[in-house]
């Protein structure tokens, strides 16, 4: 199969060596992060214990953005340098990113009920994440829309770059729209100034999410490569 599996074979070896470490690290960071978030950090003077939702909400929002950036970089790598692993990385990352946006939206909604008194407000940030969720869905759908997986990967790469250029425009538009239509009855709570005691769990949780992302990415990429290899074996057996 020419050069296509020379490089991926090396990737699989490296992934096999890294995975146990990254998985362990993910577990440790989550245990530490959750401990600090639930037991060490103080409750907010206004929101009480509700503020602890932040330790899940904010890191997943970071990861949702970071993951799209990762996909865009991989897409550019795939289109410009035609690196065979870039498509696989982008394809593996998209559902993870979509998962992070779902966490942002659900925790945002759970946070909104006690804080704003309603499950959903058309807050500029939440609305932007909602649009980002659909960008992820479009990317995933396009990846799998073709009988030829290569074609799906390349099309999704172009889409990811178009989406990446559009994200700032969408963000700007939604912010503008939000300030114009700010309903008077809902006084918008600014996110509380971060207490240093809140910073530790937030950073720990951020690192835990990142380690989780790396671990899942490696697992998904390895599974994808194995599936491709199995298909190649089946095809060559048929000949």
């Amino acid at each position, binding site marked *: *199969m*020419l050069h*296509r599996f020379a490089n991926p074979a090396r990737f699989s070896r490296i992934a096999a060596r890294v995975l146990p470490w990254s998985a362990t690290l993910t577990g440790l960071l989550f245990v530490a992060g959750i401990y600090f978030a639930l037991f060490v950090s103080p409750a907010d003077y206004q929101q009480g214990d509700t503020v602890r939702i932040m330790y899940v909400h904010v890191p997943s929002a970071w990861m949702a953005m970071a993951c799209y950036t990762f996909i865009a970089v991989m897409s550019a790598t795939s289109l410009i340098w035609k690196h065979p692993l870039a498509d696989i990385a982008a394809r593996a990352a998209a559902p993870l990113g979509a998962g992070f946006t779902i966490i942002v939206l659900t925790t945002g909604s759970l946070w909104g009920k006690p804080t704003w008194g309603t499950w959903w407000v058309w807050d500029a940030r939440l609305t932007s994440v909602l649009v980002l969720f659909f960008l992820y869905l479009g990317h995933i759908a396009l990846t799998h829309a073709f009988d*030829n*997986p*290569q074609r799906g990967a390349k099309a999704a790469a172009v889409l990811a770059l178009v989406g990446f250029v559009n994200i700032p425009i969408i963000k700007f538009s939604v912010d503008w729209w939000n300030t114009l239509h700010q309903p008077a009855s809902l006084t918008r709570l600014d996110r509380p100034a971060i207490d240093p005691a809140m910073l530790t769990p937030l950073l720990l949780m951020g690192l835990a999410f990142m380690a989780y992302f790396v671990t899942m990415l490696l697992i998904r990429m390895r599974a994808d490569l194995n599936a*491709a290899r199995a*298909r*190649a074996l089946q*095809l060559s057996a048929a000949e």
Partner: protein
Amino acid sequence: MQGLTTHKLGCIRGERAVFAGLDLALNPGRAVLLSGPNGSGKSSLLRVLAGLLPPAAGRIDWEGTDIAEDRDGHRARIAYIGHADPLKPALTAAENLTFWARLYGFDPDVEPALFQFSIEALADVPVRYLSAGQRRRVTLARLALGQNSEAGPALWLLDEPATGLDPGAVSMLANTILAHLSNEGVAIISTHGGLLDALLEDSAERFDMREFEA
């Protein structure tokens, strides 16, 4: 100097390697008849040679220089006939041909080309009313368009051009190809045997794709 040469050409479709290590050399005035079973990569080879598909490995040279160095120049020397008929059903045969002639900078007078495939009577009939064989003739008349123009394409890539043609039309096609070859042109034609092969036998080499299975 040779017209077209390929060096260790390889092609991957989807995740399947179609052919590999393909070496082909073709002098001006000669044709190649590609044969091989379905899936052996005849169409893929023609698309790679046209620059429609990037080769997975190897190189294509035209008169000794790599075509990758001058993509626009390479496109200008190609006449490609694929499986489908690139005709718009709502336009007449003449309108379809005139559009391609104008787009490619050929002589927009399509009458002689229609005449060459004896479809001049169908010039003003919308393509949707034509039979499959008649549509094929209109498609092939595009070859005549380039032939009748100055600096027409030198490299003809024809993917099963005789599909659906009656014997009379096949000999018109063969004559068109022979005229092209006598004009120092080059043609690569995929076939499943039949009349066209017999008519071109004296000016063509045979090339079996099975030798280059990946």
